């Protein structure tokens, strides 16, 4: 016995076909949102102006950070500026930038309770996860690149009066020097991704933006403290923060790339571990409104 209502039309018009969005388009959506956030814009302006601030502070204070490599030549301007900033960036600057961008991307949905609305769209959890992780770490890397580019540009503009002396006493100048400094900043990107992935993992596990932002910075500082203690070299190179210092080899003569290659592998391992853990938790979690 059919109980269909009399008004039921058996063949209603088919819905307009929808294309299920892939990771690329989801990343784009997330990217647009991220870039529109005040926090991102403030961070971008900060990265742009940071080198200038370093120069001004150095001139005002009068002393130089002599414990940092190339710190003694900071007042002379030139490529010493981006190289000194490399030293600071690795300690806490880059972990802070990456976690600032990455931590909130997941935790914000938890905070606002918007996961159900998001997950009942024509897409899978995998793509949502990938879109958010890619866009958040991508924006972070963009900020790191912005910081480096601004430092290098600033250094070029406040040009040196004499060539810079490298880590083996060699003279470095002109485009060759600039090229080396650019490469040195590029080596920061992979270790930066380690901390970005750590931020993603912490924010997925704890569902809190605070621990996702503070956690990687604290852990980064801890790792560098531990690295300064008397550890065997192979153990030291397993720590996530060690990759930030491998640029030293580029400025020596002959240049040595051993640490860079070894820590790159370790970085990939850490990134895979953090993202895998984050994904496993995310994929299996029950989603409720509150």
């Amino acid at each position, binding site marked *: 016995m059919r109980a269909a209502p009399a008004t039921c039309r058996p063949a209603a018009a088919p819905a307009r076909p929808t294309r299920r969005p892939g990771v690329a388009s989801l990343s784009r959506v997330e990217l647009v949102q991220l870039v529109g956030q005040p926090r991102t814009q403030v961070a971008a302006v900060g990265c742009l102006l940071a080198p200038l601030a370093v120069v001004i502070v150095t001139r005002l204070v009068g002393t130089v950070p002599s414990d940092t*490599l*190339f710190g*003694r030549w900071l007042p002379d301007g030139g490529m010493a500026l981006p190289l000194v900033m490399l030293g600071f960036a690795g300690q806490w600057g880059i972990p802070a930038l990456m976690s600032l961008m990455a931590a909130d991307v997941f935790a914000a949905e938890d905070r606002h309770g918007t996961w159900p609305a998001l997950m009942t769209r024509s897409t899978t959890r995998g793509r949502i996860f990938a879109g958010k992780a890619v866009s958040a770490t991508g924006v972070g890397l963009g900020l790191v690149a912005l910081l480096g580019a601004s430092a290098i540009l600033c250094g070029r503009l406040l040009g040196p009066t004499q060539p810079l*002396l490298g*880590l*083996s*006493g*060699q*003279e470095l100048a002109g485009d060759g020097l600039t090229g080396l400094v650019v490469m040195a900043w590029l080596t920061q990107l992979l270790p930066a991704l380690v901390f970005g992935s750590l931020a993603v993992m912490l924010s997925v596990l704890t569902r809190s933006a605070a621990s996702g932002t503070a956690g990687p910075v604290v852990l980064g500082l801890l790792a560098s403290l531990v*690295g*300064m*203690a*008397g*550890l*065997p*070299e*192979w153990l*030291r*190179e*397993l720590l996530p923060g*060690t990759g930030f*210092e491998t640029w*030293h*080899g580029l*400025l*020596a*003569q002959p240049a*040595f790339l*051993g*640490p860079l*290659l*070894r820590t790159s*592998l*370790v970085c*990939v*391992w850490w990134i*895979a*571990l953090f993202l*895998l853990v984050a994904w496993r938790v995310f994929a299996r979690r029950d989603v409720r409104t509150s």
Partner: protein
Amino acid sequence: MSTVTRAGLVLTAAAAVSLAGCAGSTDRVQVAAAIGPTFARLFVHQQHERGLDATITTTRASATCGRGGSTDSGSGAGSDWRCAISYRSGQHAVPAVATYSVEVKPNGCFTAEGDEPTDLVSAPSVTRADGALIPNDLWRIDGCFDPG
């Protein structure tokens, strides 16, 4: 075994193999091999800056380093390293020796402060040929080497 697990094992094996290469920690040969040529280049640079012996372009230098009171043995990071650099510049047949107190950090970077001879390496500034004071590049040497 899933693809992910397999990829993970490969990565771990590769990391282990490559890291096994650097079994030991910093040793004296590494420090000496780094500081010697660095000193040599800085010496040449300084001579040019001071306007002295402009024809000198190469200086051979070899260093011996040790820590904890000894002159040629020791390993590991620390601030009690001492290096003696014997160098021979262009015209002088007799080699001269400069000594430095070196602090070696775990990441393979070192800071060397000059001890002897005082007028060459122990003063923060040196005089130029025309009498002006310029910073002494040999007073403090910062350098790095591969610790692995």
